[in-house]
């Protein structure tokens, strides 16, 4: 009896307890955890329990990049042949990503209709509706529910969802594999998404190039995203993303602000984010509108990469900050494209018209471009305005043509020395 018991259950000298396993696995990288999932069957169940912690994720309409691996989804025509045996036949059409224009030149393949081809096309940027009007997240939720209802009706009209899709998985080292599945492309995308993201998944940097359709139908889960970059598109996608985000986790947000989406700046998600980076690549905003909106922002730090129009609005922004209470450390950094003389002109204007006086900013000890000014604010605060070098563009999708910067910061009195 005792002998059979000991033989049936060999002793494991290096056994790790369940709670210790969880404490270690949650801090391993996604790549390492994938290898564990593949090669260590005994750890799969506990591995599946813990949400992943991703470094960088790039989200597109038909593609997702997770930890430098790309999943590209393509919808196949209904008549595509099934894979036969071990050797998998290629689809009857074949073209690479960079040959899309060639396809257009030669005319669409006979098995396509224009609708399918249009779906494969990667949008250059969403053209949001003019002057978005939304008061709060309630209207956003109503939009989502309406979208879900419409799609559910559409789904029920078809007798079960069928389709074929092709998925190309590309590794960082260039390794690539293509798989054909007899499921709709949206379902395939959703399955990949579900494999890597669950309630509580963390993402350090999320770049949104387009919002996938399946997410509009998806039940909400909470993602803890630290930084979001929506600057590749018209940034409307932040609206769709908001319900999936744990707002308290978001520390930095990059938006591309134009005439058509300027109301995004009023979103609570945008207002409450500590660092807001505004990249302006579209139509110019009117001066008054820009100043009003920028003055209304309560973010702890603003990084603005504008065209020349913002320079004309900067004195009004200074005035707005000087007359409202902002916490110490509040900071605006404006990128200057080419000519530093514009900064000098603004500083001169502030001296003559707003009572700013020259000052040395203590914390800019060795910065050569510290043409500093200071304005007294009620209480123990002062507003420091100074020129400087290039603003850090870490994490930006596209580099900005800004060589210098113009900064404004709320400081405690005494942090500047009159010059």
């Amino acid at each position, binding site marked *: 009896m005792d002998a059979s018991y000991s033989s049936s259950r060999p002793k*494991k*000298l*290096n*056994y*790790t*307890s369940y*709670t*210790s*396993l*969880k*404490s*270690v*696995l*949650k*801090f*391993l*990288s996604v790549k*390492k955890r*994938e*290898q*564990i*999932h*593949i*090669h*260590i*069957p*005994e*750890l799969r169940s506990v591995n599946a329990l813990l949400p992943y*912690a991703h470094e960088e994720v790039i989200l597109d309409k038909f593609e997702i990049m997770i930890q430098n691996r790309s999943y590209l989804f393509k919808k196949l025509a209904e008549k595509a042949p099934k894979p036969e045996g071990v050797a998998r036949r290629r689809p009857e059409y074949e073209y690479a990503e960079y040959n899309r224009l060639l396809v257009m030149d030669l005319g669409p393949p006979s098995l396509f209709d224009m609708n399918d081809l249009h779906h494969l096309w990667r949008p250059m940027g969403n053209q949001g509706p003019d002057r978005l009007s939304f008061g709060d997240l309630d209207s956003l939720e109503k939009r989502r529910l309406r979208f879900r209802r419409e799609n559910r009706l559409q789904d029920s009209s078809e007798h079960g969802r069928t389709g074929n899709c092709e998925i190309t*998985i590309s*590794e960082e080292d260039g*390794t690539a*594999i293509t*798989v054909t*599945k007899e*499921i709709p492309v949206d*379902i395939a995308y959703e*399955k*990949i998404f*579900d*494999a*890597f993201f669950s309630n509580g998944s*963390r993402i*350090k940097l999320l770049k949104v190039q387009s919002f996938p359709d399946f997410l509009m139908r998806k039940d909400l889960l909470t993602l*803890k995203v*630290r930084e979001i970059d929506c600057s590749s598109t018209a940034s409307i996608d932040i609206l769709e993303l908001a319900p999936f985000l744990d707002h308290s*986790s978001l520390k930095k947000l990059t938006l591309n602000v134009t005439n058509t989406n300027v109301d995004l700046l009023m979103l609570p998600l945008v207002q409450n984010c500590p660092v807001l980076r505004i990249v302006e690549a579209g139509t110019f905003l009117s001066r008054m509108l820009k100043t009003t909106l920028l003055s209304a922002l309560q973010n702890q730090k603003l990084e603005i990469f504008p065209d020349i129009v913002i320079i004309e609005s900067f004195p009004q922004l200074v005035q707005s900050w000087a007359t409202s209470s902002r916490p110490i450390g509040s900071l605006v950094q404006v990128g200057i494209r080419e000519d530093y003389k514009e900064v000098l002109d603004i500083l001169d204007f502030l001296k003559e018209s707003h009572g700013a006086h020259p000052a040395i900013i203590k914390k800019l000890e060795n910065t050569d471009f510290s043409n500093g000014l200071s304005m007294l604010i009620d209480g123990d605060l002062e507003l420091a305005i100074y020129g400087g070098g290039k603003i850090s563009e870490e994490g930006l999708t596209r580099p900005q043509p800004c060589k210098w910067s113009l900064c404004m910061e709320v400081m405690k009195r005494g942090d500047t020395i009159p010059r």
Partner: protein
Amino acid sequence: MFTIPFKLKVSMSSYFREKPIIMPSCEINLIFNDSEEPVTLRDTGIIMLVPVILRSVQSEFPDFENQDNVKVTSPLSIPFNKKAGVFLFEYIQKYVPPNDDTIHELTVVENYKEAGQKTLDELKEIIELANFFECTDFMECLGFVIGKKLEDKSVEEIAAYMGVECNAPGHFFDEADGWVHPPADAFQNVQ
């Protein structure tokens, strides 16, 4: 003899704020796995951070916080090594566990330097002791350090360290349906 049926989590700052003058003194003997002689633990702050020891003290002296010269008579047997215990008692008050806000800035060298200097086997002994003591926050700190050390190991070495078996190594895409495992699992229920 009774046992408190729930974990009592005491905040050190809260404790000092409420009772700034009276400092209770408490002693409990611990017998570790590899030592015949008991070790006397006298630091009340540490006792309050370790739920298992705290319950042991409270079972004999329910009001020990308001008593002086408390000495627990029966020693507590601990099935782990003394060295692991000494490390835990020395750093449990110092180490701050990772959270969602700080996880991105944490490094072993800057935040958990002493744990980083331990070997993986030593760290395993310590984290299992922390598990026995129900010190979940300290387990998070050690898990972070162990995770960073395992990041450079192969999957076979990780399996050996965890005490589990590992499948034969193969190509990353060597799956029946040409699919890596996590998505393959996800597709199992698709009709």
